[in-house]
């Protein structure tokens, strides 16, 4: 009687798989991250990767099954990935046709604070020449309504925008009137303010028109005041009082806060997070300092290296995850944005993590003088004298002049990450962005050499950190996955 062949004999009979496009990058010394053409990831070893590429991977093995399921290969059993991958890629780009949803109105450059890290190159309170006029506001509103986006989010920026509150009122009422004339856009409003000038009239107006508030909170009182000087050195107390005022009238979620990391912040990330928890926030955005405006002039930007900020970030993120493990829901917002890109195909409108770049596509800025900029960062660059990313002026240029002009399109095309050196082969490219303004500001080139790019170092390190956490810590993985789905 003959014997049976071993199972391996039969797998050879059905051998043969075709690779689908993928990229890979080292996660650490022992693990590799692979991502398929739609950005789905798989963590493995170099041995598996090499076997896969050389068609030696055993089809009965777990890695083979996982890789087939996730669209890294096809074989005789299924080629469904060829149908699903295009859908996933399209999903990631689904918001592009809507074009610009976020419209920033810089209603004044005047400010009552003197933050050395200010990226806005603010003017003193007395200089009325730096206020937006009604004529410019009208022209900006006209241009905004030419955007095809079904959602229009109007964000009032400065300086300190409340110093020109009458114009804010004018713009809100004008936008609502125009919107009710002939379209069905969803309008939303937000004021970014230091809250120092809040009074009951302002709060009541915001309540009436459902205007959200975004403020700055750099941490505990001493840190916040040191970072954000103003006459009286009472920025923290005014912020605290302002948050309280708005919440009492408009509810807890009406106010969000952002922090900026300075040299002073670096050893105090847990205290900063505790301050946010104490003040009733459920999230924090651990932000690095960008190379714009006064931050460059005062050299605040150079004061800490990327590595120091990354240590700050990792310590903060681990602390936040620990809070979650203890049952307290609290989110780190930058991680949440990234996790949504890693774990879903939902498109992002976070400008810095878009490719094609979010400049002009996700957001546009109407400056107090009518100049239109591709992003807040390019407006900040212009305040230092470099108008490379000025797209036009609302008083002299039409919508197509601004949005189809070379200044915008060249930057978007040249910086498109899928065709840039190092980015095009990077496994994390679908999670990242191109940020032409950052690279222009730091390297004089919208593409930049990514080996020299702090933007690249920062993001790759965070991607690796998050993926490693999800791979190594089951509880942290659950928490991070929940963040992605909120």
């Amino acid at each position, binding site marked *: 009687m003959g014997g049976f062949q071993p199972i391996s004999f039969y797998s050879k009979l059905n051998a043969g798989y*075709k*690779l*689908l*496009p*993928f*990229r*890979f990058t*080292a996660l650490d010394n022992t693990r590799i991250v692979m991502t398929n*053409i739609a950005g789905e990831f798989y963590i493995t070893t170099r041995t598996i*990767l*090499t076997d896969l*590429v*050389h068609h030696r991977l055993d089809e009965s093995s777990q890695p083979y099954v996982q890789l087939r399921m996730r669209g890294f290969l096809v074989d005789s059993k299924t080629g469904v990935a*060829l*149908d699903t*991958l*295009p859908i996933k*890629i*399209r999903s990631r780009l689904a918001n592009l*046709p809507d074009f610009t949803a976020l419209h920033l109105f810089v209603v004044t450059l005047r400010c009552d604070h003197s933050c050395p890290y200010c990226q806005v190159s603010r003017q003193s309170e007395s200089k009325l020449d730096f206020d937006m006029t009604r004529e410019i506001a009208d022209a900006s509103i006209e241009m905004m309504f030419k955007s095809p986006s079904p959602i229009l989010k109007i964000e009032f920026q400065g300086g300190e925008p409340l110093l020109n509150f009458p114009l804010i009122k004018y713009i809100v009422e004008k936008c609502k009137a125009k919107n009710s004339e002939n379209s069905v856009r969803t309008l939303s409003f937000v004021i970014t303010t230091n809250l120092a000038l809040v009074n009951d009239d302002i709060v009541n107006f915001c309540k009436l028109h459902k205007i959200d508030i975004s403020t700055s909170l750099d941490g505990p009182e001493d840190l916040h005041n040191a970072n954000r000087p103003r006459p009286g050195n009472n920025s923290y107390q005014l912020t605290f009082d302002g948050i309280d005022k708005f919440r009492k009238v408009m509810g807890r979620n009406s106010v969000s806060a952002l922090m900026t990391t300075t040299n002073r912040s670096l050893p105090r990330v847990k205290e900063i997070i505790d301050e946010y928890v104490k003040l009733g926030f459920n999230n924090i955005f651990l932000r690095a300092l960008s190379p714009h405006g006064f931050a460059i002039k005062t050299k605040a930007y150079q004061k800490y290296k990327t590595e120091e900020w990354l240590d700050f970030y990792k310590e903060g993120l681990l602390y936040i995850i620990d809070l979650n493990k203890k049952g307290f829901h609290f989110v780190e917002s930058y991680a949440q944005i990234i996790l949504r890109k890693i774990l879903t195909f939902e498109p992002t409108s976070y400008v810095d993590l878009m490719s094609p770049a979010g400049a002009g596509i996700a957001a546009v800025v109407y400056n107090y003088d009518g100049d239109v900029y591709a992003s807040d960062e390019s407006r900040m660059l212009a305040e230092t004298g470099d108008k490379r990313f000025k797209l036009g002026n609302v008083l002299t240029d039409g919508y197509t002049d601004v949005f189809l002009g070379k200044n915008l399109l060249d930057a978007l095309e040249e910086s498109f990450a899928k065709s840039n*050196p*190092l980015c095009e*082969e990077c496994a994390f490219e679908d999670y990242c962005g191109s940020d032409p303004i950052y690279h222009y500001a730091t390297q004089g080139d919208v593409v930049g*050499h990514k*080996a*020299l790019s702090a933007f690249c170092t920062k993001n790759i390190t965070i991607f690796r950190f998050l993926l490693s956490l999800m791979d190594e810590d089951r509880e942290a993985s659950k928490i991070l996955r929940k963040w992605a789905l909120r």
Partner: protein
Amino acid sequence: MKSISLDTRVYKIDDVHRAVYKFADRVSAEIAISKDNSFISVQLSPLPRFRGDLDVLVQELNIELTDQTLRRIVKEETEAVRNVILAHTFSQVARG
């Protein structure tokens, strides 16, 4: 300074360029092909900001060279299907 010599039967010049490009924050490189095209020489000079061990960097570069070879194989093998996927992706791009 460190020099490495790479057999052209194993390594392609484009892969060498791509690998070396990644280390531009730490070293500068002079790349040359021998007259008989049998080997590629890479001469690495550490930049002033480089504080690491050049021997370790060479090890990392060797790993990266292997990775670039793998990437090229994947790219060549998947070029056609990549074009099909992308064509399918953008063939249905239209606003309703």
